């Protein structure tokens, strides 16, 4: 018979578990010296059971979560419980064991109480370099994993409480940014320590049996909640297809069929493109993590996040496809231009279609959240002459998808983390030799619909006190408008990447007339349309890019006129966009709706649909 604690104690302990994860989250940020971690929040924390089941995980990077469980289970398999000691800290970053790509370095720490292994604390964060053939970890020239630098399936960075000098030296020797990289590992160790301390405090207060019972009960509770919710949705099949630009091929296609039967849900990716000869692939671990990503916030926002969520789910990831590439395929560029985000977006679109079929849960559906991303990975020498490499994570603030009852948020979020943020401009300017010209919301970038997708942003910066910046620029959505809308809403606008020469930017600044929009940047503009481009940026040249907005919801011709007018007044939509996308005529001087003309234009647009449409 299953042992259960009373519901009040359960609730109290569940909140304690959540606060432990929260403290782990803030600890890594306080120790790390990497803006990607302490400002952008590109990390994740978890408490696992003795056997590697997730007892709870935080709101950080969600696609890293199921892989943490796989990583701990791998350690147990390789080492056995008899070679896992109190005071051990394992470093794991092998995509074929349990992470998306080698930059996502995990520290996995067994927690002992009175000599017995009772749990694990785990943290993961994006690190600045892995020593692969290209700086910054994103190895665009890689064709096999052996080109992608340091990868550990799980070595003891600390053993029995003693730091392994040989391992640390090996690691320092393997990466281009040793100091910041080791500091990031220390930050993860600190986070694991804090979570361990707090868990031991609970064990001392409530007893080890009750805490182990908590883990079981939480996992069973979440499983039951997911099964109950799935049972409330009609059985059926929903399909979504989406595309992303490749590095080695023009495009990749991801197909996701969701099959809901009774209290189970299958994510079937049959039909997805074969694996890439380049580094855009996902391993099976990454494929599963990316596919399940939207399920947490969309379906489980009111359910404790742990391994119980996965039990009613099944994943079909065809071997040899970009969502389950065979060894030794390269994987380092699977985000943002590769298979990961597009897998998440396709699953999200299919999930939204499923939710729309449920009277109870239809308001949880939404358009895609900024599938189209742009991330410069810049490197070179800073003003002190030291080598640096970093991912500029401003692209995280894309537009949220529109919902059945409201617009998406502008520069709101992304689907794969509930907590990530963008760095302050000043932080990036402090750490790296760049000067921002613009970072602002981008009009007309949200997907049109009865409810509009949130806006993305336009970002422009120029080198500052350096001879040049090498930009390994990754992104998607320049050609396929892959931030999809739902239920009659349109996809968001394309993303863009442009290098501007002869901008006269510093002259304009001296004249007191800096550009205030993309259009005012001027100069000679060169567009980059591939998933990945490498180019240098010289002083006075400007890198300009925009990311994806959110997909729209419902027919834009059914959008209320007052909402379109509000958008134009707020400069979320241009006067031209109001007419073209919504059929609403607005006087640009008076900022008033011309109701008569609008009625005529909307009628004409509907008539056009009927005359141009074919069966």
């Amino acid at each position, binding site marked *: 018979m299953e042992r259960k604690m009373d519901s009040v104690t359960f609730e109290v302990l569940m909140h304690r578990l959540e606060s432990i994860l929260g403290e782990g989250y803030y600890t890594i940020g306080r120790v790390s010296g990497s803006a990607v971690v302490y400002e952008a929040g590109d990390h994740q924390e978890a408490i696992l059971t003795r056997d590697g089941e997730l007892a709870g995980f935080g709101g950080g990077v969600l696609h890293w979560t199921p892989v943490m469980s796989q990583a701990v289970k791998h350690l147990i398999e390789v080492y056995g419980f008899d070679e896992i000691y109190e005071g051990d800290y394992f470093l794991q970053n092998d995509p074929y064991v349990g992470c998306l790509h080698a930059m996502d370095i995990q520290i996995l720490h067994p927690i002992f109480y009175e000599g017995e292994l009772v749990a694990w604390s785990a943290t993961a964060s994006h690190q600045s370099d892995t020593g692969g053939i290209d700086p910054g970890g994103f190895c665009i020239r890689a064709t096999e994993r052996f080109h992608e630098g340091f990868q550990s399936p799980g070595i003891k960075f600390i053993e029995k409480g003693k730091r392994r000098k040989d391992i640390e030296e090996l690691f320092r020797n393997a990466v281009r940014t040793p100091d910041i990289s080791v500091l990031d590992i220390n930050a993860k160790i600190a986070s694991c320590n804090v979570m361990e301390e707090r868990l031991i405090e609970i064990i001392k207060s409530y007893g080890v049996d009750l805490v182990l019972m908590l883990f079981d009960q939480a996992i069973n509770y979440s499983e039951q909640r997911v099964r109950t919710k799935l049972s409330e949705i009609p059985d059926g099949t929903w399909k979504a297809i989406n595309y992303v630009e490749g590095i080695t091929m023009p495009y990749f296609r991801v197909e996701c069929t969701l099959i809901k039967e009774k209290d189970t849900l299958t994510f079937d990716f049959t039909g997805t493109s074969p694996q890439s000869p380049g580094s855009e692939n996902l391993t099976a671990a990454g494929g599963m993590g990316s596919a399940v990503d939207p399920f947490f916030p969309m379906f489980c926002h009111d359910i404790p996040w742990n391994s119980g969520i996965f039990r009613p789910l099944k994943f079909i990831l065809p071997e040899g496809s970009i969502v389950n590439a065979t060894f030794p395929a390269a994987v380092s560029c699977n985000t943002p231009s590769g298979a990961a985000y597009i897998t998440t977006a396709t699953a999200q679109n299919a999930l939204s279609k499923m939710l*729309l079929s449920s009277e109870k849960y239809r308001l949880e559906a939404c358009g895609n959240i900024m599938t189209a991303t742009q991330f410069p990975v810049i490197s070179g020498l800073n003003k002190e002459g030291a080598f640096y490499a970093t991912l500029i994570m401003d692209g995280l603030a894309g537009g949220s998808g529109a919902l*059945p009852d409201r617009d998406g948020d502008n520069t709101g979020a992304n689907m794969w983390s509930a907590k990530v943020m963008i760095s302050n401009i000043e932080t990036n300017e402090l750490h790296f030799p760049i000067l921002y010209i613009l970072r602002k919301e981008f009009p007309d970038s949200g997907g049109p619909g009865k409810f509009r997708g949130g806006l993305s942003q336009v970002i422009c910066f120029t080198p500052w006190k350096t001879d040049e910046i090498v930009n390994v620029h990754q992104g998607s959505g320049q050609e396929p408008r892959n931030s999809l809308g739902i239920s009659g809403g*349109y996809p968001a606008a394309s993303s863009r990447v442009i290098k501007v020469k002869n901008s006269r930017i510093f002259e304009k600044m001296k004249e007191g007339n800096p550009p205030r929009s993309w259009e005012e940047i001027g100069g000679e503009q060169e567009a980059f349309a591939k998933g990945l481009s490498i180019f240098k940026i010289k002083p006075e040249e400007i890198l300009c890019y925009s990311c994806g907005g959110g997909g729209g919801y419902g*027919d834009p011709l059914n959008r209320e006129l007052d909402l379109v007018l509000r958008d134009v007044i707020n400069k979320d939509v241009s006067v031209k966009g109001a007419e073209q996308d919504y059929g609403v005529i607005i006087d640009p001087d008076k900022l008033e709706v011309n109701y008569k003309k609008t009625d005529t234009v909307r009628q004409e647009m509907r008539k056009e649909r009927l005359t141009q449409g074919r069966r």
Partner: protein
Amino acid sequence: MKVLESLEIVEILGTRMYRCSECQVVLCPASEDYKEYALKREVRTTKLEPDSLAFPTDAFVLREYFCPKCAVMFEVDMTEVKEKQIFSISLK
């Protein structure tokens, strides 16, 4: 039962049918792909971009599916030109 903003399934004479929820025109049995009975139009993806900075493409299109009577939009698929029609919803 609503399945999209403007598309619902209703039972008519014992058969579950897709119906436009705006004008109530009946499209087809719910066991079929409603898109076969909707009006379709393909437009360029640059339709979405009011400015001139968007990167043009001939590889992808927007496929719009709307009601044959009142023209309300049911779904918009962004697909490769050569992609088959996506059978997006199939309820048991």
